[in-house]
Every structure is written in C-alpha cells, then in structure tokens.
C-alpha cells in the first residue's frame, strides 16, 4: 500500500510535468504559427548549402561557396584558437602576479594587488575596447610599423610574427620526438616503481628529460636542422610572409588573458595560503634548501588547491571569447549566431547547434577537470 506522502510526491511531480508540458505545447504551437506566417524553412538541410559570405580569418580552406557546415567549423576553430592563445598567455601572468601577492617585497605585493583590483573590477568589454580602439587601431600603417629585431612587426593591420616552416626530413624529427616521449614515459614508470620497491633509484628528471628530447635532437642534427623561419617582410603597402595575426585577435587575446590573469592570480594566492606555515617551517627545520622547500613541499600541496578553480577559470575564459562579436572577430557566436542566423532566419536550428557546440566543449573540459581532480585528490586517512 502506498503511503500518503508518496502519493503526494507523485502528484506534485506529475503536476509539474503537466504544467511544463502545457507551456511547451503553447510555445510550440505559437512557434509553428509564427514560422508559417514568416515563411521560415525548417530542418538542417541549410548546413550543406553554400554560405555565400567571407570570413576574415580561416584556419582551414574556406571560400564563399563553401557550405554553412564549413563556416561553422571555421568559426569554431577561431574560437578555440582564441581561447588557447589566451590561456597560454594568461597562465604565466596569473602565476607571476599570484606569487607577487605573497612576495617578501612590499612593493611587489602592492603592485600585484593593484593589478588584480584594477583588472577584476572593470568590465571586460571596456578593457577590450581600450585595447582595440584606443591602442591597436591608432597604430601607424605598415610602413611605420613598430618592429622587434626585424622579426616581429606590429601595425594597424595586425601583428606579424615569424612562422616556423618544416623542410624535408622534418617528419623524421617528429617521429623521433614521439618515440622519445614514449620511451621517457616508460622509463619514468620503471624508475618510480624501482624507487617504491627499493627506496633507491637514479634521479628521474634528467634521465626522463634526456630520453624525451634526445632522439629528436640527434635526428635534427643528422638531417641538418630541417626547419627554417619564414620572416614577415614589408612588400608594397603591407607585410608579406610569416604569420599574420589580425588586430581583432590580438585585442581579444590581450583583453581576455590580462583579465583572466587577475582571477588566476587570486587562485594561485589562495593555493599558496592553503599550505600550512608549519609545513614550510618543518621543511626548513629538516635543513631543506629554499628551492627544495618550494619544489617539494609548497608547490605540490598548493597545486592540489589551485588546479580545480584554475580549470573553471579556463572555462570562464572560454565563455568570455563570445565578446568577440563586439569588435568583429569571427568567432563561433558572431559567425553562426550572427551572420548565419540573419541569412537563414532558422533561429531554432542555428541556436540549437550553437548551444550544443558550447555545451559540448564546456562539458568535455569540465569532465577532464573532474577526472584530474579525482586523480590528484589526497586520500583522506
């Protein structure tokens, strides 16, 4: 016999589902009426039709006659590149500022605190406008570029970097590198097992490092360094060759990485604070050198606290790439949620795809973070 409370619970849940269903039905019938009234197509067939618009940054071959599906891929790649570059720049800055906030030097502490409090409390979009409209756009034309060592040039058209180009024989070096890393992995495991069993083993880092890059180094020397740099050079009215980065990407990456660095700094600071002072004092009392104290005592314990929120900060940075629409960097949201939506008017399909891509990347990365967290979590004794 069912208890009275159970019947109540089922009734409440059924009622919620019925109300929700009614709302969905009402919205769906409105949507159907609206779509017929406005003459909007349905279905995902548009993905295979030619897109008919150009994209200012394409990492894979793309032209106006490419299908919408190709435009989606190009835009998604642009988002991923922007996020990857920003994360790579934000992390070291964030760690430096975070360490600075716990520096022995009072002046360094002050400057680091100032950085965090300034960058965290100004809207990211305003910072983006500052970098883009106030700093990059007024730069001189290519002929009066700011240059560094003749290899890097910055002007109103963007940033021009040297690009590594693989020559014949580069494949062999790459193969040697992969083999070396595999070898190093096996060696690291063997050494760790031996240390666990006997308490004594040769120092792992130099051996593993030598095994990892040694073969590639030898292969490179044997094949005669099969790589050269393609330097950007002024030709006519603009720079040719090298790696050209459009100003929108430079501004986005600058704004995102400096903004996120402030949050990463706070995460690093909290991680350092989480290591009890007694640990450091005990390590010193044992006679460990300062470098060993940081490397073996503080950093491993701090990293356990730092990594989970750091992963979340990376995800936040990834979500913030969507501000690109404000200055016209062709990211996923701008190209797909903007241009493609305007051209096809198929709001349901376009938005479904757009949200699905963000949710998939977001979910994939958070699953990765959770997996890593479980791995490094301390077993409670």
């Amino acid at each position: 016999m069912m208890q009275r409370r159970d019947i109540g619970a089922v009734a409440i849940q059924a009622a919620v589902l019925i109300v929700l269903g009614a709302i969905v039905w009402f919205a769906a019938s409105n949507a159907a009426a609206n779509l017929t009234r406005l003459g909007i197509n349905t279905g995902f067939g548009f993905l295979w039709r030619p897109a008919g618009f150009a994209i200012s940054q394409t990492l894979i071959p793309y032209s106006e006659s490419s299908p919408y599906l190709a435009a989606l891929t190009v835009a998604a790649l642009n988002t991923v590149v922007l996020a990857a570059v920003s994360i790579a720049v934000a992390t070291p800055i964030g760690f430096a500022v975070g360490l600075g906030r716990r520096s022995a030097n009072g002046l360094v502490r002050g400057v680091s605190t100032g950085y965090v409090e300034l960058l965290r409390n100004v809207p990211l979009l305003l910072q983006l406008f500052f970098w883009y409209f106030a700093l990059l756009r007024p730069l001189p034309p290519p002929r009066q570029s700011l240059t560094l060592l003749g290899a890097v040039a910055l002007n109103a058209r963007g940033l021009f970097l040297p690009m590594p180009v693989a020559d014949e024989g580069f494949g062999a070096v790459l193969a040697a590198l992969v083999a070396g890393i595999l070898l190093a992995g096996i060696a690291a495991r063997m050494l760790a097992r031996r240390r666990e069993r006997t308490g004594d083993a040769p120092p792992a880092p130099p051996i593993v490092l030598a095994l990892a890059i040694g073969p590639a180094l030898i292969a490179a020397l044997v094949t005669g360094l099969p790589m050269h740099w393609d330097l950007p050079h002024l030709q006519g009215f603009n720079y040719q060759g090298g790696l050209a980065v459009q100003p929108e990407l430079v501004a986005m990456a600058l704004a995102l990485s400096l903004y996120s660095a402030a949050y990463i700094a706070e995460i690093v600071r909290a991680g350092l604070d989480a290591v009890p002072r007694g640990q450091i004092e005990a390590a010193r009392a044992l006679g460990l050198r300062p470098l060993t104290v940081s490397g073996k005592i503080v950093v491993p314990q701090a990293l356990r606290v730092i990594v989970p929120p750091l992963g979340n900060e990376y995800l936040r940075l990834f979500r913030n790439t969507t501000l690109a629409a404000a200055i016209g960097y062709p990211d996923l949201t701008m190209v797909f949620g903007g241009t493609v939506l305007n051209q096809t008017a198929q709001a349901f399909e376009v938005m479904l795809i757009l949200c699905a891509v963000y949710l998939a990347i977001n979910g994939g990365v958070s699953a990765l973070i959770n997996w890593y967290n479980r791995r490094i979590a301390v077993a409670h004794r």
Partner: protein
Amino acid sequence: MTTLETPLQPGIGARASRLLHSCISSPGNIALTLALVLLAAYALPPLLDWTILQGHWSGGPDACAPIDGKQREGACWAFVGSRWTQLVYGPYPDSEHWRVDAVFAMVLAAGIALLSRRVTSKGLIGLLLILVAPPIAGVLLAGGVLGLPEVPVSRWGGLMLTVTLAGAALAGSLPLGLAVALCRRSSLPVIRVLAVGYIEFLRGVPLVPLLFLVMSILPLLLPPGTDLALLPRAIVAFILFNSAGMAEVFRGGLQAIPKGQFEAARSLGLSGAKTMALVILPQAVAIVTPGLLNVAVAIVKETTVILIIGLIDFLNQIQAGLADPKWLLGDQVRDSAYLFAGLVYWAVCFGLSRVSARLELERERRG
C-alpha cells in the same frame, strides 16, 4: 605595572620601515624594487601631466580641437562634461529627467541602508528592494499611468539603462536562483533533475549566445502579433543567465547548514516549509551574502554586453559620443572617455567587492 591588554599594533613609522626593509632585504629584492621604481618614474609623471596638468576640463569640442592643425596635448575631460546629460539619461526626454533621478535616489538610499552598520532590519529592506522597488521604478520610468507621460523603452539609455538592466537582472535572478537552488535539493526526482538541467544548461552557454538565443527565439514562442521590445528580451536573458549563478551560490549556503538544524526544527514540530523559512534560510542568507554581492559585481560588468544587440547603455553612449563627428579630434578624446568610464565602473565594482570581502571576514571571525 605592565599590562598586555592591548595587542601591539605597529605604528605607521614601524610599518613604513618594515616595508622599506622588505624591499631591500636581498639582492633580488633590491633589483625588483629598482625596476619597479624606475618604471614608475618613467610612466607616472607623463600620466599625471596628461590627465591633470594638461587636461582640458571644461568647454565644448573647441576645448580639445587642434590649434593651427596641431594636435592638442592632454586629456579631454570636456568631452565627459559636455555630454554628461546623454551619458546619464540617454535619449530620455529632458522634461522627465526627474523620474530617473528619483529612481537613482531610491537605489542609492537602499544601497546605503543595506551597507550601513547601524541599520538592523536589513532583511526587510532587501525584501522591499526585490519585491516593491522594481514595480515602482518600472512605473516611474515607463509612465503611461498616474498622469505620467509614457516614455517608450526605446528612449531609455545611458547610465539610466545600465542601472535599470542591472537592477532588473538582480531583482529577478535572486528569487529565481533561490527557487532553483531549493528545487535542486528537493527529494522529488523530477524536480531535482529539472533544476540540475536548468543550471547545467545556463552555466554552459555563455551570455552572448544566450542573449542571441532569447532575442531570436523568444518572439517566436509568443502568440503571433505580440511585440516585445529589445530591452525586456535582454532582461529575460540576463535574469535566466544570472539565476544559475545565484542558484549555485544559494546551494553552497544551504549545504553549509548542519543537518542537525533540519532535524532539530522538524523535531520541534515545524513543517518543511516553516523549517526552510524560519530556520534554514535566515542562516543561509547570512552565509551567501558575500557570494551574492560577487554575482552583483558580475552583473554590473555584464550589462556592457548589451551593446552587442544594439541597446545604448552607459558604455555604448560613450561609444556613440566618440563617433560624433564634432568629437573626432584625436586619440586623446577616446582615451579620456575610456578612462572616465573605467573609473565609474571600477568605483562601483570595487566598492561592492570590498563590502563582500568585509562581510566574509566578519563571518569568519564570528566562526
């Protein structure tokens, strides 16, 4: 007689000498200090000179215009001064500005009351601010009733729009977030799953795509012929987006309440709803206030995003002013305008985050 009653607080002199010592305690530190001092000596005097000494403080575009074809040095604060009305009220009709001022005064008074240590009935003020203030502000700003001339939403702009949007997002997402957080802890599986799905979806989709989603989909879901202006749609998107963040904050607060509190309340004979309202929530709200303030800071910063869909908030009003041909006088106008905008946002966000940090610290001390 020696007493140890007062803890030894280092005086200013002692603190300064400690700071000085910390800056020159080792060769590495001396080098760092020197580098920073040199950098400051290089950057600060020109910055001070540009912003203050050479700044043009009053007048119209002429104050910053080039003389004899030569660019005028120094910041152009005259831009801010002469466009002040647009920056604050946007295209809101001149004769009705008092209504905006009244709303500003209301927000300011409530804010001061909430932050002051003397005021005790903060719960009541907060409740009033969420339940009563938004409709009053809405009626006051929109008009069309009580003899107030109607001002269409399309004429809302500037700082007034930023405050309206932030206020509406805050007032809407707070109760919604609390409701979702409670649903997430429900013992009924259907309700729990719905709440989890709601939170996961809104935590995964960034604000800008969500804004586009609401912009394009919401009108299609309403009965044909319904016309919804841009601002209400943007407010819906902001409320949805931030309710997920609020829900996560509330969840943390609810989790922090010991199980014994539930059990004690239930064994006293309180019903489930009364346990929540009288025992759990009052404690949880005290715990989550710093977190909620952090969401408020995030909302203030986020409001700038609506310029992507063409609404003219404070920042976009500045952009519009900079695009005015009268003010195309050189980079210094833009630099000054951004510096001013940054100061305004910074003051609000920094202030709120200081309050949040202070509350957090006070709670930690109390244990």
